[in-house]
């Protein structure tokens, strides 16, 4: 599942930011793939594609250092999102 996720995120960066990243461990910050504008765009695209909420103010810089770290972030956020949705369901039923 994680492998699919990294592939999808790599594709997203390729399509939306027009950057080809050769390895999921490549440092996106050192290579300046992400700047303040592209980061906001990427977060928006991730939220839309994976249905997760990623508040900028809770992020650490290392969360989006590489495709692998972004995948871990999306996965953690998906779990948190699922959990809160289940809680909402449980409390409403």
């Amino acid at each position, binding site marked *: 599942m994680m492998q699919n996720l990294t592939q999808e995120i790599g594709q997203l960066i390729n399509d939306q930011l027009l950057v080809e990243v050769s390895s999921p461990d490549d440092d996106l910050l050192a290579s300046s793939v992400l700047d303040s504008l*592209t980061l906001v765009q990427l977060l928006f695209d991730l939220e839309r594609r994976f249905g997760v909420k990623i508040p*900028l103010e809770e992020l650490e810089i290392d969360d989006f250092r590489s495709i692998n770290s972004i995948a871990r972030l999306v996965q953690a956020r998906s779990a948190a999102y699922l959990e809160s949705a289940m809680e909402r369901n449980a409390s409403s039923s």
Partner: protein
Amino acid sequence: MKQRLHDLLRVQAERRPEAVAAVFQDVSTTYGALEQMSNRLARALQDAGCVKGDRIALLLTKSTRALVAMFGSLKADCIYVPIDTTSPIIRIERILQKCECRCILAERSTAAVLNELVQHGAVSDTVFVGWMDEGDAVSSGARSRFVWSGVESMPDQPPDSISHPCDAAHILFTSGSTGIPKGVVITHANVIHFIRWAGVYFKMSSEDRNSGHPPLHFDLSTFDIYGTVAAGAQIHLMAPETSLLPHKLADFIREKELTQWFSVPWVLQQMAKFDVVRQNDFPSLKRLLWCGEKFPTPALIYWMKRLPHVTFDNLYGPTEATIASSYYRVARNPEDETAEVPVGLPCKGELMLVLDEQLRPVRPGEPGDLYIGGVGLSPGYWNDPERTREVFRPNPYSSNPSDRIYNTGDLARIGADGLIYLIGRSDSQFKSRGYRIELGEIEAAVHANPGVQDAAVVVIDAEASEDKTICCAYVSRPGLDLAPLTLKRQLTTTLPRYMMPQRWMALEEMPRNGNGKTDRPLLRQQFEQETSGARRRPGGEAQSTRTELRSNSSTLVQ
């Protein structure tokens, strides 16, 4: 005034060699060490054949090493050219060609960029490379002349420096309307005049801990670096990635106990938007300065409410007039969000004139073109006498024939209070996130695609932020149906990321006004409508606009 920029460092190193000059990623460097390292580098450059006036390209990321490279270049009587290492290779190539650099100072992290430049044929055989970090030279195809261990073995006494305060110290490249970046030449005296004034006005002292926030090819960083050294203070260089997260910027100010924060309004707006500043935050902070573009009043109110112990100064001035030409201290928190903040009054030794087309002063309150003259004025653009003559004109109000004034392209008026207020631009230049962008440069890059028949670039206000959105409308050559994505991919090789259009429209014909010129207001209107339409109907953007615009444009032609 006889001092040159590197003399400022020598004076501090003699006075307080053990005092901290720069901090980067928790590593402190003293004035003594900075002086010695830059002396050694200057000697290595001279040994390698550099002579007075040679250009040295700094292919370096922001770090204390880059400061050593700046001072070392100046001590060798050379002119340094900071390169934005994140720029597309073709843009860097144009800058290197324009400057005819003698040397490139590089580091491991920029070796790949250097390699690409060599592959492009941008590094001639006469250019040599000096490596600024530990270890062996990185194989790049370019001629390596020295590595850092070689620099360290040089004597640490200052070399004989014969440069004059009026000689060029550095060249800063800005967006050019014809598609080629312009190299603004800045002299030692240009910078020293400003920092002398600023040192007194801001009461800067050796107790100060100043931010080093913008990239080194930004004009602002000139003040951060040399203003700090002139005062014998500390500069805290911030890693570029810290800028990505507003709460990390706030942490940086807190943790480093900064006394001065100099930034661009876009950054301050982001920090306000994400509400990362607490009431009475940053107790050590004394002053907050901004430059580069208009600071929206609501964000200014946010900052002033939270930091009653801080002074707030709006600095204004294009790169051509060195850092800033005017200042305005916002003494009281503006009462309403529509209050206009002026750019204020000229700094000492600067001249600001609001003139009409015949270069006559306009009456107070009337709009006119803003011209700048005085001690901060650059000698002109590197290797471009034609463009220099175009915008740097003789000062009609001076008896000295060599006095010049620079047409900023800004429209301004003088208020009833005697202060200068900006109104807008007389050309298509605009500012985004502190970057100065010429629409002509983007259009030239789009036109360079052989599949493009016509193109126009306009800016609209971004909906979700106070920034601008760059929009490109284009017509493909007959028989071709160039997709926006194809065009965007091609543009990534020539345009920096901050100049890349965010919205695209493929048209069958370009709308024209009654004079046969591109109807830019109509294009702007269409992009604005499309933006709000796209929000309602995700995915259905380009095609619907194409039809709409075609019918609109034919109506206009009739």
